[in-house]
């Protein structure tokens, strides 16, 4: 309300007071003119005039815009009424809080992931450049340093192109110098990375031109600076010792910059260094590409340019034959689409689910409000007869429901605050941007909108009902058992049926997603995640030759294997589902090479024992420590690579060619899900770590043991320290944890939709209970008469239960139709589950029937206990 309104209101109030005062003065003056004394005249005039404030009050009511005073009055009245009915109010507010809270939480997630722009300058101009349909498979979406440099030089679409080294593993560096070495995660980025994204360091500066070319400095994250550098404001220029080399810190990144949240959900990065392109020039595809479109350039134009430009790039300029390696291998998509596009459907479904919850909440509360309105008919009839207008009554009812929805929203908002704060701390959920989920202004605005809409909708139902009936009749009507009550009950039944139908859809949706999740958990990953854990190990810097490296590996493995409880142990430089790395794959020796079939393969450089420790299934033999430089080069392939290289033949014992070298296939393992749980599997090859040919870095030790990981940590770490005192204090990560992280988005959605379905079920059963119970109360006398006339308790009970079931069945009938439509919509989210999954639908029907029977049973029992005599006496 604007201030002038108040001023005007006050002015008019004074004006009226003056008008009434002038009336009195004139009356007194007239009386005195007739000869009365002033006192007498005043007294008589006052008596004649009546109660001045009352007159002022009733006059003001005629102004018709009593809004402010009326609102305050409505509010007072609403609070008093709701305060009297504490039970009703508590239930209503709680139900509303659950419904609205769920909506606020989901909205804040949707807002963060889908609606809000990425936390970069002009983020809507940023594109992700990768081969079509490469998704989040980084191995399939990286380019060589040569291709990156050519793109930067030759393109006309971008103001600049940047990228980052895609294959840095967590804890890839260690901070040494002070106490135990501590692992840190460093990502190497193209020198212009931060400049191009528009991220300015909060302290210090970005990489200068020389550093962009040659590296050798770091930018640390805000979190790392606070936690490990003591938030030292003078940190700039100081060096931290990384892998025994002092590296100067040039700047601290702002708190708002979270690399993992955008590019690799769940990854916590500590620092960034400029990638020296020379270092990776011969490593193949290692760089992701991000471009910023020039103003006016459309995505379509950038795509057209990409199809012309990318065939001109080399995989490696040193190999002229690699020209054209990127033909058809680049399709720019919006960066936002890359980050959250795959989640759009899931989130939309989630949003739909909470929307349904809100609908159910509204239906349920409308029912409660209607039931309450029925008992208040007389109150309202009385107020109408005393002069209250219908508009006024309606306003009163809507005020009441607004107070309810307001209270529910406040409580719901509180719940949402808690829930989002918790969610933002869940690093284990591999959803992008989750760390920035929270209740902000937009979310608050959404909450207010919901509260208003819910409030008005809730108020309208009883208002429509109260004002749509003849209140004079209501005054006379004795209430229960009349035809009017019946009609009213039909409306409530219809609402409950709608509620049941919505609950059906929710339960079916949750059931399908849950079954999909279970199906995903059933997927044979090609390794056994249970009872195994991995820890990253550090190579001592004293190692100079492949022989000492081999000795180190052997010593670590034999010492750890000797620990009590350890069943198998092995070392690899790569673990499934964690990190991607693609090399050019092997070819079959002696077979003509299909130039189009140049195939990339995932690489694992491993020690003997790794395959067993992972629980992988092997045909042929595992590597032996003797598979070193002094013996024939050996390779183990996965089933897919083996069968495509030697279709219809056994690959074990064949000779393959890898990077121009002959390698003997000594074994074939069953396919391992290397980069995701649900997706397709590519070629994989396993190479021995004991050869200088392949080289291994960032090693992980995999230990299989029946003992809990926590009991192993100390002894394993101690063992590692005896072999290499420089071993940082890393922690074990169970393979189950790795798998859980990979499946966490699906789990997250399944659990949330499951919670919403449970909520919907509870609300629907409350709705059924409410209507049946109310019906029994209304028919107490009728039931009493029937029992007096000989109806048995069983019959009465069966009657009530039958009514409940009829209502539930109609609801379920409608629900099956709704669910079917809904299930088809979420088809793409399902895994190994049909949208028409019989078990889910049947389970939903059984569950709802049981819940309906339970909801009907309580009132039915009450009905059968009605004492005919008491009921009749009260007639």
């Amino acid at each position, binding site marked *: 309300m604007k201030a002038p309104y108040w001023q005007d209101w006050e002015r008019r109030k004074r004006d*009226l007071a003056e008008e*009434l005062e002038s009336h009195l003065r*004139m009356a007194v003056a007239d009386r005195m003119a007739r000869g009365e004394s002033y006192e007498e005249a005043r007294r008589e005039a006052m008596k004649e005039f*009546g109660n001045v404030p*009352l007159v002022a009050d*009733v*006059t003001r009511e*005629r102004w018709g815009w009593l809004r402010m005073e009326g609102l305050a009055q409505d509010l007072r009245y609403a609070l008093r009424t709701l305060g009297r009915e504490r039970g009703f109010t508590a239930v209503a507010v709680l139900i509303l809080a659950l419904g609205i809270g769920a909506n606020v939480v989901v909205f804040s997630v949707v807002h963060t992931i889908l609606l809000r722009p990425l936390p970069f300058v002009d983020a809507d101009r940023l594109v992700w450049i990768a081969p079509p349909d490469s998704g989040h498979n980084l191995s399939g979406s990286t380019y060589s340093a040569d291709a990156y440099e050519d793109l930067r030089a030759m393109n006309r679409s971008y103001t600049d192109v940047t990228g980052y080294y895609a294959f840095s593993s967590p804890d890839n560096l260690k901070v040494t110098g002070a106490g135990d070495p501590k692992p840190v995660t460093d990502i190497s980025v193209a020198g212009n990375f931060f400049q191009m994204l528009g991220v300015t360091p909060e302290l210090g500066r970005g990489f200068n031109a020389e550093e962009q070319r040659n590296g050798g400095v770091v930018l640390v994250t805000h979190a790392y600076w606070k936690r490990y550098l003591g938030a030292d404001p003078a940190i700039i220029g100081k060096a931290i010792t990384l892998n025994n080399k002092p590296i100067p810190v040039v700047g601290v990144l702002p708190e708002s910059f979270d690399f993992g949240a955008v590019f690799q959900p769940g990854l916590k990065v500590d620092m960034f260094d400029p990638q020296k392109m020379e270092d990776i020039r011969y490593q193949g595809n290692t760089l992701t590409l991000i471009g910023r479109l020039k103003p006016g350039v459309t995505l379509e134009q950038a795509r057209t340019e990409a199809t012309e430009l990318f065939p001109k790039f080399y995989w490696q300029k040193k190999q002229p034959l690699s020209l054209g390696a990127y033909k058809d291998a680049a399709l720019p998509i919006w960066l936002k689409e890359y980050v959250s596009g795959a989640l759009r459907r899931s989130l939309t479904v989630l949003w739909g689910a909470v929307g349904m919850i809100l609908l159910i909440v509204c239906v349920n509360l409308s029912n409660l409000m209607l039931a309450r309105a029925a008992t208040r008919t007389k109150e309202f009839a009385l107020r109408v007869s005393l002069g209250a207008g219908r508009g006024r009554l309606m306003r009163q009812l809507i005020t009441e429901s607004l107070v309810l929805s307001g209270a529910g929203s406040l409580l719901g908002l509180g719940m949402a605050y808690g829930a989002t704060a918790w969610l933002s701390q869940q690093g284990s959920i591999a959803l992008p941007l989750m760390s920035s989920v929270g209740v902000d202004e937009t979310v608050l605005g959404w909450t207010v909108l919901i509260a208003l809409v819910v409030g008005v909708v809730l108020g309208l139902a009883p208002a429509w009902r109260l004002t749509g009936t003849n209140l004079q009749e209501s005054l006379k009507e004795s209430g229960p058992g009349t035809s009017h009550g019946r009609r009213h009950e039909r409306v409530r039944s219809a609402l409950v049926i709608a509620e049941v139908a919505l609950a059906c859809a929710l339960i079916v949706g949750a059931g399908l997603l849950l079954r999909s999740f279970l199906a995903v958990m059933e997927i044979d990953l090609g390794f056994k995640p249970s009872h195994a854990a991995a820890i990253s190990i550090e190579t001592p810097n004293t190692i100079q030759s492949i022989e000492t490296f081999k000795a180190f590996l052997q010593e670590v493995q034999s010492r750890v294997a000797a620990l009590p409880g350890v069943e198998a142990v092995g070392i690899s430089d790569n673990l499934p589902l964690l990190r991607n790395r693609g090399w050019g794959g092997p070819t079959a020796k002696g077979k003509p090479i299909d130039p189009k079939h140049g195939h990339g393969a995932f690489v694992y450089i491993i020690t003997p024992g790794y395959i067993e420790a992972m629980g992988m299934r092997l045909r042929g033999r595992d590597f032996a420590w003797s598979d070193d430089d002094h013996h024939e080069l050996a390779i183990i392939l996965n089933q897919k690579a083996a069968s495509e290289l030697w279709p219809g033949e056994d690959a074990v014992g064949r000779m393959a060619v890898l990077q121009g070298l002959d390698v003997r296939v000594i074994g074939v393992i069953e396919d391992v899900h290397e980069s995701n749980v649900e997706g397709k599997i590519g070629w994989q090859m396993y190479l021995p770590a004991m050869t200088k040919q392949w080289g291994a870095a960032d090693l992980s030790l995999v230990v299989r043991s029946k003992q809990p990981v926590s009991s192993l940590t100390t002894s394993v770490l101690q063992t590692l320290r005896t072999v290499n005192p420089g071993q940082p204090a890393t922690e074990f990560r169970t393979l189950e944890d790795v798998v859980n992280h990979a499946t966490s988005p699906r789990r997250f959605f399944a659990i949330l939709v499951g919670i919403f379905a449970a909520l919907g079920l509870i609300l629907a059963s409350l709705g059924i209970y409410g209507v049946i119970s109310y019906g029994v109360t209304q028919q107490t006398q009728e039931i009493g008469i029937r029992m007096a006339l000989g109806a048995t308790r069983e019959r009465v009970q069966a009657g009530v239960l039958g009514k409940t079931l009829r209502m539930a069945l109609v609801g379920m009938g409608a629900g099956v139709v709704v669910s079917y439509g809904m299930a088809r919509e979420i088809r793409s989210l399902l895994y190994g589950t049909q949208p028409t999954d019989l078990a889910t639908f049947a389970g939903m029907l059984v569950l709802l029937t049981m819940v309906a029977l339970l909801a009907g049973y309580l009132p039915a029992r009450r009905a059968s206990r009605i004492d005919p005599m008491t009921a009749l006496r009260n007639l």
Partner: protein
Amino acid sequence: MALGSGYQNRIELLQGTLDMLILKTLQWGEQHGYGISQAIRAGSGEVLQVETGSLYPALHRLERQGWVSSEWKKSDSNQRAKFYKISALGKEQLARDYERWGRMVASIEGIMTARRGAV
């Protein structure tokens, strides 16, 4: 509004009657609230006494409906008072009210004077 004889004999006037009386009073010239009540009382031979609790709400409603307008002025006795003035719309309304009143009186009269009614 009540008959002068007192509270216990109070008879509710039919809706709109007071409006009609006020508009009629104002047809003779602009007047303040006290003046209107005095005029009605005098005009009815001291029978009708308009209660302030009915008069002022009615005046403010009439003003809101645009049938009268108001203005602060000095009265004859040099007192500041709010004067009401009938508008063109108000005059039309008065004509309608009076016509309806006439029909009502006639019909009630018809009932009251009938020897045998169907009532």
